[in-house]
């Protein structure tokens, strides 16, 4: 390879894409006329471009039949996920299924403590609803009210327990 070849080869892309100045075109053509190596590379790169464009034209046609607009629209309409620590709309959390689902899910997956005045075991009923929740650096507190038995339940979660996912999956 001629020691000057590299400086001409770097121009080859610009040459085939019509992005060179007239002066650059002239220099490159002069060099290629006397350098079979650069002339061959130029022909190869043209062929690469031709083959790629054919392949990409197939890809372009294929994506014409694909739409993601509905999925995107659905994602834009999603309310922002509200972390557990934030104050949130009561109406969702007042629904009995919500607290029942949280209770069932958390009972299985997370370590927690019950504090009851009686100190006895307690079964969360369908009438349980969340009254309030607070999060601190050290952990979370959820207050439930069971209207059937008029019992207040306080759940404490340690900070090590990741609560954010349970809030998302239920909503």
């Amino acid at each position, binding site marked *: 390879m001629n020691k000057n070849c590299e400086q001409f080869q770097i121009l080859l892309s610009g040459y085939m894409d019509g992005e060179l100045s007239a002066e650059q075109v002239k220099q490159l053509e002069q060099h290629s006329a006397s350098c079979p190596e650069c002339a061959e590379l130029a022909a190869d790169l043209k062929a690469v471009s*031709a083959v790629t464009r054919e*392949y990409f034209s197939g890809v372009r046609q294929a994506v014409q039949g694909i739409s993601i607009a509905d999925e995107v629209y659905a994602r834009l309409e999603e309310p922002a996920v509200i972390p557990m620590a934030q104050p949130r709309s009561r109406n969702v959390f007042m629904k009995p299924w919500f607290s029942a689902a949280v209770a069932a899910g958390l009972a299985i997956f997370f370590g927690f403590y019950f504090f009851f005045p009686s100190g006895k075991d307690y079964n969360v009923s369908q009438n349980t609803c969340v009254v309030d929740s607070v999060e601190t650096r050290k952990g979370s507190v959820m207050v439930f009210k069971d209207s059937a038995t008029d019992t207040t339940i306080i759940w404490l979660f340690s900070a090590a327990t990741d609560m954010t996912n349970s809030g998302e999956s239920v909503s």
Partner: protein
Amino acid sequence: MKQTDLCEYSDNDLISAVREGKIEAFDQIVRRYESKVLGVLYGMMRNSDDARDVAQDVFVKAYKSVDKFRGDSKLYTWLYRITVNMAIDYMRKKQKKAKVEYNDEVKISDDNPAVPVDRINPSKTVQNKELRTKLQEAIEQLPEEQKSTFVLREMQDMSYQEIADVMNCSVGTVMSRLFYARKKVRDMIKPYLEGVS
């Protein structure tokens, strides 16, 4: 605002409507540009599920950062920029993950092509299945910046200046990235290039 009205809106009108909180205006932008965004992503990634997922992320991100769009560049330039950045990001993360984990990604075969083959109507040259596979492999192995530049040029036929705007680099950088990309692809598919011009 009806969809039919929105079709006639210019990009800038749609952007203004989105800023006023009209989600349907953004839906119109998605429908207007999804093919372009998907095309670039399908060109850069061999896994069509990945391409679809990233395309969705691109538009969600564009929606959330619509305030950052300044009218001094074209909307599609801005969308391509988000697309390329997210695709590069995604591929780098995936490569990192693949290094530490067993790569269980579905291999592209005729049963599971990156793009449904029945939708592609390749002409004679690329009908050669082996060439197509080699070409996909070659593109996949390009460094991310070269790959993006190569796809923007060969898929979307963008000018060097447009590519430079998208990639935030100089026109000279576009030219050299394209040269090295094409040369690498050529080295991998050289045996198939006989008779192609």
